[in-house]
């Protein structure tokens, strides 16, 4: 019998529409990538009008913060690959923005990819950087997108604007009763 655990952690990324970059959304726990993608859909797709979703094991992500970059000695080690891989480069440019995809670079380690990313996109003020091999992630299939994302669009009763409580309260305060509509 296996130990009863909550499973490893996966990071969840989403794309809201054609123009916006891929953005970090949150995390889920799952036994594997496939279940992680399904859990991500359940936890995070209750409202947003998304067009794409992917997950990646948290353990596969190389993370550094601005504070760590300021003192280079403290940078965590990264795994050396035997050959160059496509590494996705995410960063959080400033407080008000999400952690978003800058692009991808070819590199033999996440640390090397970080250097390339910094010279490519040059954002020395980014609050943090996340880097991971593209092959570590799992994205929803194109054909699944409609069934994964349409449910959230149709449930308008989840919008607070569906409830006219401000008008109702105004009527109660001024007339002591609700007006018939």
């Amino acid at each position, binding site marked *: 019998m296996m130990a009863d655990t*909550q499973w490893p952690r996966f990071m969840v990324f989403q794309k809201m529409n054609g123009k916006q970059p891929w953005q970090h959304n949150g995390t889920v726990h799952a036994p*594997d990538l496939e279940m992680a993608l399904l859990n991500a859909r359940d936890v995070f797709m209750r409202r947003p009008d998304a067009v794409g979703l992917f997950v990646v094991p948290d353990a596969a992500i190389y993370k550094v913060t601005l*504070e760590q970059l300021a003192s280079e000695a403290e940078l965590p080690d990264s795994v050396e690959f035997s050959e160059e891989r496509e590494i996705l480069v995410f960063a959080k440019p400033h407080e008000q923005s999400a952690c978003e995809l800058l692009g991808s670079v070819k590199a033999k380690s996440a640390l090397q990819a970080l250097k390339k990313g910094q010279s490519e996109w040059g954002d020395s003020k980014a609050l943090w950087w996340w880097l991971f091999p593209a092959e570590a992630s799992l994205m929803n299939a194109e054909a699944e997108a409609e069934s994964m994302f349409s449910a959230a669009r149709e449930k308008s009763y989840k919008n607070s604007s569906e409830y006219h409580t401000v008008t109702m*309260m105004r009527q109660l305060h001024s007339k002591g009763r609700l007006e018939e509509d």
Partner: protein
Amino acid sequence: MYGADVEQVAIELNEDPQKLADFEARIERGEKIEPGDWMPEEYRRQLIRMISQHAHSEVVGMLPEGTWITRAPSLRRKLILIAKVQDEGGHGQYLYHAAETLGATREEMLDQLLTGKAKYSNIFNYPSLNWTDIGTIGWLVDGAAIMNQTMLARSSYGPYSRAMVRICMEENFHKKQGQEMVILYSQGTKKQREMIQDAITRWWWPTLMMFGPHDSDSPNSGVLIRWGIKTRTNDELRQEFINQMVPDLQACGLELPDPDLHYDEGSKNWITGSIDWDEFWRVVKGDGPMNKERLEARNKAHDDGLWVREAAAAYAQRQSELN
């Protein structure tokens, strides 16, 4: 201690005075502290305590409402309630994640909840006895929670603050669907008016207790405010909530169970009678009407889900062997 200067605090907490001073300067400038950044152990400990309690509250909060899903009086109300309960489960997930960024594990946190060691919001140890409790929970309980969460959205810890921004957005739907119900029942048939009055009478005082003990009896407040985890005190938030709610509930023709409630012209505040803190502490310590049932329900759900976790793990294991 927490009004003290940074040198003094560093000695008390056994932290490096320079690092602590830099950390406090960052908070002073309004910067967010992010996972991986240096932080005092006490900051980490307080955040894990607070965020995991908050996560547990979202999860246990599904119970008093979930029990009414099968008895919702219309399809519309049933859809709304299912969506709301599902949101609360999602909020628990966001918050467990925020606590994980501080090094707490999901297993530890769940274990503390299931063994009764962890606390969750006291309000959920009260029963939901009639259908209009659902509206009352939405307007009063979620309304009080939003007030607290709006403050926490400005919290100094990045992941907590971001979880709160998202939760507040979704909670607004919870509050307004509840408020709509309370308004409609308060203007409805005699039976509906009796039911909603009964619900408001039962939930009013426990809702006011949600903001926690008076500032003078709140041991963690000092450090939470010093480090920008909280920016307002329990009593400030409670007073703002009372000032918002009293006129609206009265406009609905509802009576509040407090003979001492009155408006104070000088301070422009609604002043309530004294809160029964004996009851509050009794319920916190486990002797509330529903503490035992809530814990049993969570344990049963966890145990009943064991075969699912085992099956999923076995499947993942087999797939990795095949590949």
